[in-house]
Every structure is written in structure tokens, then in C-alpha cells.
């Protein structure tokens, strides 16, 4: 099995303002393959929480549009996950 790669995958951080926004993220989780980094699981999402989740390249566009349309506060923590996976090994072998 070839190892998974994460080219151009992104990690979003969304600061939820209210219950409506919490439900938007929960709905997005039902129709997209979001990997929640914090909280561990979309069921734990509540208003006024900061949520981190990983999005595949193909779903980034639609997710970002949904966040923009709903005027949600977000930042992209990681722009290309594969790059970060490779960059984590930043200490040379002894």
C-alpha cells in the first residue's frame, strides 16, 4: 500500500461565534471528509469554540466558500500538509 500523501491539503482554524456557526461546521462534517484535529470529533463542537480541521485539496474550495458565505472567522494554519509532514524532520541524524 503506498503511504498516504497530503499534498496541498489544508488545516483550517475557525473561531465559532454562535450556535448557528457551530451547526454549519457540523453540517459540513456530514457532507465532507473533514479530519478534526480539535476537538477530536465534530459532535463536541459548540458555540464560541475554536475548531481545527484538515481538508483535502479537492474539498478546500467548497469549504472555504461555505465559510466565506457565512462570514465566519477563520485562518489557514497549514497551507500544504505534505510539506509540514516532511518539514517536521528538521533535526539531522546524529
Amino acid at each position, binding site marked *: 500500500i503506498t503511504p498516504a500523501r497530503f499534498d496541498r491539503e489544508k488545516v483550517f482554524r475557525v473561531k465559532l461565534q454562535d450556535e448557528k456557526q457551530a451547526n454549519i461546521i457540523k453540517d459540513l462534517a456530514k457532507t465532507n471528509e473533514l479530519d478534526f484535529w480539535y476537538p*477530536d470529533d465534530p459532535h463536541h463542537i459548540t458555540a464560541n469554540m475554536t475548531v481545527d480541521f484538515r481538508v483535502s485539496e479537492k474539498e478546500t474550495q467548497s469549504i472555504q466558500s461555505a465559510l466565506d458565505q457565512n462570514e465566519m472567522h477563520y485562518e489557514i494554519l497549514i497551507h500544504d500538509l505534505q510539506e509540514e509532514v516532511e518539514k*517536521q524532520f*528538521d*533535526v539531522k541524524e546524529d
Partner: protein
Amino acid sequence: VPGRHSYRKYNNWERIVAWTEKMVNKHPEMVSRIQIGSTVEDNPLYVLKIGKENERRKAIFMDCGIHAREWVSPAFCQWFVYQATKTYGRNKIMTKLLDRMNFYVLPVFNVDGYIWSWTQNRMWRKNRSKNRNSNCIGTDLNRNFNASWDSFPDTNNPCWETYRGPAPESEKETKAVTDFIRSHLKSIKVYITFHSYSQMLLFPYGYTSKLPPNHEDLAKMAKIGTEALSTRYETRYIYGSIQSTIYPTSGSSLDWAYDLGIEHTFAFELRDKGKFGFLLPESRIKSTCKETMLAVKFIAKYILRHTS
């Protein structure tokens, strides 16, 4: 991934096993290796016992790597063993601790998942057990403990990252750990589990908003522990009960150990706060481990002084 074990780098499972052997060979009077069981894919589950032979002394049980992708967690357990063996006889606090306590260290709890995160999917979290009637693999070992195990419906789907398993302690890994802790319950005074990320120091409960009877003691320890941690590099941790600080969780090892009777149980969510998330660069391992040592040594000292 060629090369040999390094405390400043992430080590794959093969290197960690070799490291456990090296530590036993190098410090036979202080380190012994106990196989407490094996995983779903028949990898060994090793606990390193740090301290003198005397079984009756107070002990602290620490586990790392319950979630596969949280790589800085196993790095800390390796660092702890390294520091304990290196500074015994040189550092006053560590010498006093090891003269009067034992530490049981489980460097990698979720071995199969950890191997998978190295070889196939860096973002893997659960173990690698197969689920009946589902193509989805894995159970979240930190939802598989018998602590209000089935109180949340959202842990009942094998395809979800927080799947609790078909029954409490259904997983070989969980059972190996719970059996070991139950059989050493007389001596184990503290249970500490290491996760990442978020920079938090948590204590029970996760499955209820009810306060544990000694919550003031736990809160005081957590407060001072986070203060001790921040003295090194001013890294800010928050602390509190799982339920009030992050969110309700069922089936966690922390709550299970507490309800078993270990009155001091803590969970560290190590660095960072999201800039790198699970992908903390190796260049930050050392400082993360050094500051965490200060908190763990404080907790151990406190227990030495305040428990019978």
C-alpha cells in the same frame, strides 16, 4: 528511516524497541522491561520500570502514544526515562524521587497505530483492529475504557475517529494496560497520560460535570504544575477538568484510573497550540520535553510528600 535512536528526533517503533533494550542493558540496576501484553497485530506492549526493585514503594504510571499521530508524546516518555537514568545521583530531586518511588513508563500504548502513522498514514489516530460489519478500521483506545463507556452516542460508529470499540476494554492494548494497573494498584498513586496538542493539563472528569472529591487538590497540583512548566520557556498551559476545559468525553483512561481508586490522575496535552498541531518539528522536541519534566517532577514530589 535509517539511523539510530535520538532523543532529539522522532523514532519509529523499531528504534524504540532497540532503545528499550539499550536502557535495560545500560542501567540494569534501575531499569527493567516488562511485557504487559501484545497488540491486535501482535506487537509487544512494553512497560519500563524505573526505580529499585522494591515493589511496595509508591509508584507513578505514565503512558504515551495512545493516539498514533501524537508523536511528541512518545518522545516525552523516552526523554523521561533518559533524564531519570542520566540525572539519578546528580540531580537532587530526581535522586530523591527514584530513591523512594518507582515509575512505570509505557513509551507507546498504541503500537500498531504508531507503526501505521510511520509507514502508511501520518494522520492516523486509532489502533488497527478490524471492526465487525464494517470496512472501517480501528478503535479510539481513549474511548475504550470502562468509564461511562457508552454514555455518548457519537462514539458508536466504527468509521468515526472516536469509535469506542464493541465493548469496554475490547481492545488487547486497553486490557493489557488495565490488567497491569489493577495488579499494581496498591503501589500506583498517580496515573499520567500524555497526548498532544493544545498545551493543557487536565484532570477528571470527562464523562460528567460532577467534581471529583479531591478536585481542589487536583486543581492546585495542576496549577502549580503548569507554573513549574512555564518557568523554563514561558510556555503557557491552561488547566482544569476535561469536561470543563475541553469537552465531555466518555471511556477515557484518565477517568477510569481515577474511578479505580488512583486519586491523582492527569492528562497532558503537549505542545503546541495549533501552528504545527500534530506535526511539531523535531527541533522543538527537546524544549517541549524539558519543560514537561518540570511539571512531572513537581507532581511526583507532591505525591511523595502528601500521600501515605
